[in-house]
């Protein structure tokens, strides 16, 4: 698989015929190779126009675009477009072609041999998670989510270094959208293309973008930053208002529990003995304590029970109701804590190894970074 090429927009402008104001003002943007850059902004911010200038569906009025260092004007439009994957919201599958024929579109015009096309088509439907039995179907026989996957497979068919996606998940329902977003990230882990994606959904932007470009009306680049930076430090009022009032909540989705400093005095090893546990529960000053033995979290015990117990063996800890993984997002951790009525969630890896407790305070501090 060929991996991505960097895309560079320099002084890019577009003024449509008959319009006094430019749709895109001089715009400079560097899209690092192998990364996902999301263009976002309100209607009329020129995000789709910018995207369509990259594969010359729209010709810029001024400025240059290079892909992998080469000016896109040096190639014919058809040549250029065959080397750029293109996915749109309405998918635009050819209704009169089977799924296999749709996916094979670009390899076929490139004159690949039949056997190579067949192999590639099968490889791609596997890659996007479609069943091979769908290959002989027509697009109308597929669900919206399946069609979108076929659209992605078709775009990737000739293994282009660059993938352009114009609101690719805008037409599917929220559940399917979330799944397709996750699948895109999984796919990107495998193919490492340079992806430019347009959306108007800020949640989508921060969820899948390595970097997010916030555009204002007229193609003014207001901020270009990684999602967490964007949410933590919006450059101006426009960006802040565009990001919405729940910036911190959104940031929660971007950090994992493993990134927190899990300092907590509300748990102790059972080996320290009854006296040690009693000291610990007093030190914790919350009236309860988590018990850990052999690297595993055993449960919660109240201060009362600890004081009344005759020996460590008398202790009957309450099993934890809130559990998270180190790779869980802070958002999931918060959710688990809020629904469990615990003040803390137990962090365990897949094999059950205990690595600490997450409390609300730790989450707050995590966002303060």
């Amino acid at each position: 698989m060929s991996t991505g090429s960097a895309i560079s927009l320099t002084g890019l402008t577009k003024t449509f015929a008959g319009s006094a104001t430019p749709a895109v003002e001089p715009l400079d943007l560097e899209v690092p190779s192998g990364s996902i850059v999301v263009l976002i902004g309100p209607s009329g911010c020129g995000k789709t126009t910018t995207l369509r200038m990259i594969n010359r569906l729209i010709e810029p009025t001024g400025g240059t675009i290079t892909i992998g260092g080469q000016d896109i004007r040096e190639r014919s439009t058809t040549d250029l477009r065959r080397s750029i994957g293109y996915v749109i919201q309405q998918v635009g599958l050819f209704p009169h072609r089977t799924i296999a024929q749709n996916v094979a579109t670009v390899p076929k015009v490139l004159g690949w041999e039949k056997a190579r096309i067949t192999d590639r088509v099968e490889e791609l439907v596997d890659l996007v998670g479609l069943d091979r039995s769908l290959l002989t179907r027509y697009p109308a026989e597929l669900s919206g989510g399946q069609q979108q996957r076929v659209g992605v497979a078709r775009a990737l068919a000739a293994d282009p270094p660059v993938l352009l996606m114009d609101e690719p998940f805008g037409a599917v329902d929220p559940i399917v959208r979330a799944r397709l977003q996750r699948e895109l990230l999984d796919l990107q882990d495998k193919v490492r293309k340079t992806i430019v994606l347009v959306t108007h959904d800020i949640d989508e932007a921060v969820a899948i973008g390595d970097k997010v470009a916030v555009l204002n009306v007229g193609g003014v680049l207001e901020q270009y930053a990684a999602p967490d930076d964007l949410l933590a430090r919006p450059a101006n009022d426009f960006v802040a208002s565009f990001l919405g009032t729940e910036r911190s909540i959104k940031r929660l989705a971007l950090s994992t529990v493993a990134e927190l400093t899990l300092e907590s005095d509300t748990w102790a090893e059972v080996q320290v003995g009854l006296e040690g546990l009693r000291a610990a529960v007093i030190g914790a000053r919350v009236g309860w304590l988590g018990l850990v033995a052999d690297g595993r979290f055993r449960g919660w015990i109240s201060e009362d029970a600890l004081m009344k117990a005759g020996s460590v063996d008398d202790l009957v800890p309450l099993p934890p109701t809130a559990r998270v993984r180190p790779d869980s997002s802070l958002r999931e951790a918060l959710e688990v804590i809020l629904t469990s009525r615990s003040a803390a969630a137990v962090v365990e890896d897949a094999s059950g190894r205990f690595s600490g407790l997450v409390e609300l305070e730790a989450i707050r501090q995590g966002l303060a970074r």
Partner: protein
Amino acid sequence: MSRRGWFRWGTALVVLGIAGAWAQARIAGLSIETQASNPLVRWEWLFLREETPAELWQATAQHLRLTFGAVAAGTLISVVLSTIAVRLRWTFAPITVATGFLYTIPSVALFGLLRTRYSSIVAAEVALTSYTLLILVRNMVAGIDGVPGAVTDAADGLGLSRRRRLLTVELPLALPVIVAGLRIATVTTVGLVGITAIIQLGGLGQLIFDGFGTQYYTKIVVGSVLSVSLAVLLDLGFYRLEVLLTPWARRRGTP
């Protein structure tokens, strides 16, 4: 009942009617001499007269030739006009006006006028062809226009050339609308061919005109029935062709 159903039953009825009449005539054992009055249908003319089958066949064959000639020529010209109209949008209005104007000229007048300069066959074909243009061009352009914007956008974005997009994407998708135009044009032409009898052509129309001239109603009835059958059969044929060429149109819904 579906459109398809109507065609089936219509065709079946016509065939049954003819077969029934033939059987009746044979059973009755009528002969040409026994008919004195002037009935609507003289079965003995239809089934016992030796020359009748050949004459009917000839008339039908000429009718078909005139129809196919006009529809074929009309299709060729319309493909050219539609391609121009699709590529250069501003030409669509003038092309529609021009073909619409041709369509409004009374057929009797057009056949007669053209006959003063050209031979019968040329006059007939030119006039018949000109009547097909409006319907064919409009349907061809509407068919291409009806291709969803997302589909053409995707075709462009994937790097299909304009010609390839037209031939492999737009044309196949426009086919149902184009074939619908062909069906209307053909059925209309089958009817119009009859009128070319006024310039000594006409196929089955000639038969009908003869019937009027000689008060021989059988020819009028037989000519009409055959003309209608021809129209129905051709329409059905085109429908079949469309079904054959658009397999994707009948497989819908999630599996």
